[in-house]
């Protein structure tokens, strides 16, 4: 009996304490963020978890939003759609935020999109699939280049610079890979080049030798590789192990720091990359990169950069039009030529904010990235 009473007292005491807590936070403007904090997706999620916190500190240090502090409320979106959806619903129902940051995974963004429309809250997301802009959801704003922008740039590079006439494509079997493969194939077809082979592999696959052999046997003279970070690193390594000598144009995932540390200089020989932004050469990014590294002990990647920019754009909007979801939505939709850490942001009718990618390759014998060119897509 005494144990029971003690337990009851403890429970009511903690309930009172918890109920009392929100009063501290009431004065801050709360912005939601559904970020993968655990699971395989946390590899990227941690990057923008960090940069959003950095943005919060910087905004508040500079006086907040007209005197009021801003606070990011994080919910763990984990790595699958149901958890991302739950995370979004929880934030929307509990905090009723004026703005939410979604994760960088197209498949999660697609799952959450209907609820975004229902909740009428503007969101920024970093998933690249074209299916997302086809939704024509007026509340969704993409802060990374769309996959098709990157795929088109890859295809143009293969034709224009590499002068390949029989390119082959190897892609990861998901929304990103399939969408990008389709976009690349179409761009090449429009330029009169037929793709000789298009092979897919599963996201958890560890052996792509069968697919690579198929590309070799069909006579591909250049390889377009559309992958996520970890499988991309495996893919590049296996290409070299199998003795394939064709030039490779790879999508941005494999050049993130988490994947780069898995590869050796030999794996990157004859590899060209189409990435979101090369932070090392972007002058606007210098202080961000330095502060991020000092604070979090790891290198910031493109994802960290775009979410940081998104937060800064949001802060500008909050200062100018206040914490009203509809007014914020209209503000973001009208942002043009914002010079951020990750590039120039101009939101178009489909909600796409960035229209440029960077082509890089690597100094022979090293893993040092070398800037080749910036490709700006015609909007």
């Amino acid at each position: 009996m005494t144990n029971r009473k003690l337990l009851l007292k403890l429970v009511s005491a903690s309930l009172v304490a918890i109920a009392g807590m929100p009063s501290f936070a009431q004065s801050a403007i709360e912005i939601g963020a559904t970020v993968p904090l655990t699971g395989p997706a946390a590899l990227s999620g941690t990057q923008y978890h960090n940069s959003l916190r950095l943005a919060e500190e910087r905004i508040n240090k500079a006086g907040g939003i007209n005197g009021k502090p801003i606070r990011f409320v994080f919910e763990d979106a984990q790595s699958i759609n149901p958890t991302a959806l739950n995370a979004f619903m929880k934030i929307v129902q509990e905090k009723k935020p004026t703005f939410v940051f979604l994760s960088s995974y197209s498949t999660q963004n697609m799952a959450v999109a209907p609820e975004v429309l229902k909740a009428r809250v503007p969101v920024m997301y970093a998933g690249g699939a074209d299916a997302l802009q086809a939704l024509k959801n007026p509340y969704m704003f993409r802060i990374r280049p769309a996959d098709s922008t990157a795929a088109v740039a890859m295809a143009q590079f293969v034709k224009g610079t590499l002068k390949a006439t029989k390119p082959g494509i190897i892609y990861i079997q998901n929304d990103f890979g399939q969408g990008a493969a389709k976009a690349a194939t179409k761009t090449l077809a429009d330029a009169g080049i037929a793709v000789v082979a298009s092979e897919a592999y599963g996201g958890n696959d560890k052996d792509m030798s069968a697919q690579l052999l198929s590309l070799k046997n069909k006579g591909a003279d250049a390889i377009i590789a559309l992958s996520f970070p970890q499988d991309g690193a495996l893919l590049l390594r296996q290409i070299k192990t199998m003795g394939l000598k064709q030039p490779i144009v790879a999508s941005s995932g494999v050049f993130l720091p988490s994947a780069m540390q898995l590869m050796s200089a030999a794996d990157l020989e004859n590899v060209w990359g189409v990435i979101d932004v090369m932070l090392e050469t972007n002058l606007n990014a210098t202080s961000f990169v330095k502060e991020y590294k000092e604070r979090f002990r790891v290198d910031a990647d493109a994802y960290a950069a775009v979410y940081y920019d998104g937060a800064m754009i949001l802060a500008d909007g909050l200062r100018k039009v206040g914490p009203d979801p509809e007014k914020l939505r209209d503000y973001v939709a009208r942002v043009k030529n914002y010079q951020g850490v990750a590039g120039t942001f101009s939101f178009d009718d489909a909600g796409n904010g960035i229209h440029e990618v960077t082509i890089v390759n690597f100094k022979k014998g090293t893993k040092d990235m070398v800037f080749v060119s910036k490709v700006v897509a015609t909007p």
Partner: protein
Amino acid sequence: MQDLVQLLVSGVALGSVYALAALGFVTIYSATGIVNFAAGQFVMFGAMFGVTTVLQLGLPMPMAILLAVAMMGVFGFLFYLGVHLPLRTQSPVTVVIATVMIGLSMQNGANLIWGSVPFRLPSPFGDGTLTVFDSAISTHALASIGITAVLVAALYVLMQHSSLGRVMRAVAQDFPTARLMGLPVGLLLACSWAIAAVLAGFAGLLIAPMWFADAHMGDAIALKAFAATIIGGFGSVPGAIAGGLFVGLAEILGASYISSAYKDLLCFGAMVVFLVARPQGIFGEPISERG
């Protein structure tokens, strides 16, 4: 022709790793009757222990491998003490759920300890390739096949021709009688767990240089090891090896000659066919009551 050689070697190398993981699984099932759903995470732990000894502690390779294997043995022993022993009187379903839970804890624990960034574990056999019949075969793949063969042979010798193996088999065949005859059954069961953990550890150390080591690698391996066990015959050691090789070859050859997008369907489809047509697998005995 050269394609076939390359694909066969890849398939057998992959199959060997699946076979080792399945062996860990089967060793436990034969000795204790427990279906260990954390088997895939055991393999992952083997790889991560290797990451600690090779990369983080920077020990010389032979010592690092031995230390990682020893750590796995200790882990198996602790697993017996912490999971099997308290649950030995519970119903099988309880134990299964417990192993599922432990598996999840191991995965998330690994995520906390080693982080979510994958590691590149260097192969003790180097990154080189041999040219056989005009195709490039990695030395690591060949070594994996060799090491698996050695481990299977060692397991066979241990179980069939050593006194330890004899008493372990006695405990597996008839637990109450073995106890009545005065055998130290607790210690012998702990040995089974340690051996299973060591086999899984080798699987992890062999697969990590091929696949990269991270906290989430266990799931894919667990599914394939499970399929291998079912195809080869639940509870049968030759079955685990045959099943593992079958799954590895089906994955690689199927991807090349049939369809790369549907290759997993081939392997799991085969598993379903076996479950329907021949549930005891290739080498298994027809289902009977376990004592």
